[in-house]
């Protein structure tokens, strides 16, 4: 049986009303599963300890988070990315962020103990850097879990399908030869955080093991999935992971308000299927999923509920429960569709579609040309 990790304390990771990274998104996904008749029995983790956090973060930064968390003023908090529009300070944020990191770390421990599929219903805070909070991310739960696994002899393939570049995970593990990172994201030409270029390939012993695929704005599912296949088959020909860690951000969906990729729920279903298949083929089925970005209240809960169903080999239903739609439309004001999946024609045709496909192919070729230079 796959394990699902969740704790009510995750809800305290909350930057306040009107902030896009709202705990309501996970609540909606859980409630959707409940409305579909599935009882989620999560494993409850412990919060990460200070020492766990210090395995990937600098002490000055952690001191700053702790001080602000207990409402002690830190004059240079903006230096650590805190007290900004993206990462406003809230009381108890150190503990809230440690709960999230503890959950993902618990997932790593379960994998170590022999579990195959694990879904952490939270986390995926991939922007947090060694000494800076960034892009809604305070502590990097992914890096904590990956470091735990790699220190116990696992070769880890980190796969990041969030629409934004997984810059924090990449930065923390840039030299680690036991970890391959692959991030598919919308090009940083204008999108946050601006990094994730094909030339960022890792350094020292990790050189050639950090792969970035910056996709054109308005890339659709077909081109996205073609890119995914090409890069993953080349990467896994080189690096044999013992476990996959997957940041399953739902913000590459076309309805996401913060970015411009054009995936549908059908594309996400294909993508998740392929990831599960790769984990089965290359890593004895060992895969740890976290959530991540995903700011469309209409799309993200469906995508994450679908991920839950898929790791349990349960069917994806055709329709959404009407009561669920009514309830969450009323609470959030967001529009809810009747069907679980997006309809066939859910957005107008992308005008320069062919050009986008060609450019993405070109990027993949250039990436593999330069990365394979470091592969034996």
């Amino acid at each position, binding site marked *: 049986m796959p394990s699902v990790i969740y704790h009510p304390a995750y809800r305290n990771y909350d930057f306040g009303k009107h902030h896009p990274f709202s705990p309501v998104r996970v609540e909606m996904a859980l409630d959707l599963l409940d409305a579909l008749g599935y009882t989620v029995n999560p494993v409850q983790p412990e919060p990460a300890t200070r020492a766990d956090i210090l395995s990937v973060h600098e002490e000055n930064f952690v001191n700053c988070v702790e001080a602000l968390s207990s409402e002690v003023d830190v004059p240079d908090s903006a230096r650590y990315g805190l007290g900004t529009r993206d990462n406003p300070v809230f009381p108890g944020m150190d503990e809230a962020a440690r709960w999230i990191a503890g959950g993902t770390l618990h997932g790593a421990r379960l994998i170590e103990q022999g579990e195959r599929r694990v879904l952490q219903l939270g986390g995926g805070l991939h922007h947090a850097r060694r000494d800076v909070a960034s892009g809604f991310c305070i502590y990097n739960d992914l890096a904590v879990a990956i470091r735990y696994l790699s220190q116990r002899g696992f070769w880890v393939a980190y796969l990041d399908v969030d629409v934004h570049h997984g810059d924090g995970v990449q930065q923390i593990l840039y030299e680690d030869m036991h970890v391959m990172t692959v991030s598919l994201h919308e090009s940083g030409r204008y999108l*946050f955080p601006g990094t994730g270029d094909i030339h960022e390939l890792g350094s020292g012993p990790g050189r050639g093991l950090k792969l970035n695929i910056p996709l054109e704005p308005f890339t659709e599912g077909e081109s996205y999935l073609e890119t995914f296949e090409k890069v993953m088959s080349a990467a896994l020909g080189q690096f044999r992971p013992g476990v996959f860690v997957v940041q399953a951000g739902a913000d590459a969906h076309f309805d996401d308000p913060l970015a411009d990729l054009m995936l549908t729920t059908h594309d996400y279903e294909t993508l998740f299927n392929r990831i599960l298949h790769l984990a089965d083929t290359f890593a004895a089925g060992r895969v740890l999923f976290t959530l991540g970005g995903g700011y469309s209240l209409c799309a993200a809960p469906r995508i994450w509920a679908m991920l839950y169903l898929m790791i349990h080999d349960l069917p994806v239903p055709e329709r959404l429960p009407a009561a669920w739609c009514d309830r969450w439309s009323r609470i959030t004001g967001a529009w809810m569709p009747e069907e679980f999946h997006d309809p066939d024609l859910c957005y107008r045709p992308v005008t320069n579609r062919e050009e986008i496909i060609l450019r993405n192919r070109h990027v993949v070729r250039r990436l593999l040309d330069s990365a394979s230079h470091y592969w034996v």
Partner: protein
Amino acid sequence: MLVQDIMTSPVQFIAPNVTLQDAYQMMQEKGIRHLPVLDNGRLVGVITDRDLRLATSALSPAPFSPGANVSAVMSRTPLTAAPSDPVEDAARTMRERKIGCLPVDDNGRLVGIITGLDLLDALMRMTGADKPSGRLEVRLADRPGELARLAGFMSGLDLNIHSILTYPEDSEKTRAVLRIGSIEVRLLAEDLRRAGFDVLWPPARPCLP
């Protein structure tokens, strides 16, 4: 941004009576390409990896031997920068004279060095490209007050602008390129469009209903 903000300091240097072989080894070990040459504390030249390669090349009609002195090959009376020079002045000197470095001279004392790579670092810092940020590109009429109107729109939104660059597009229009320390630039772009600004990046979303 001043030369003293971007220079490498302290600086590796070499004496004029050292052999080319030793200069080569020093560059390899330290991973550097430019060495100021100091004679009794006085700057007398600069020797670069290119100088070494050309001087000792088998293709040269009269190649120097590895045991020749640095003083035979170095560029004499090198151009220098002062610590308080603006970086754009240093960039102009290096570009006009087509040279790869400037030793930094503070009242006769060698205090640092800047190279072309330091200028690229400066470019990245000036554009804010070294910080997690989103990029916003706006077309403005080339008249007083337009940039203030744009910045004014953002004030109060708690948005940290890491950098603003402007350049003329034609005689009537100016482009403003801003790097903003937020993941929410796409939302900001929509707000700016609604307020009548001509936002070029992030692009509009013609395919959404």
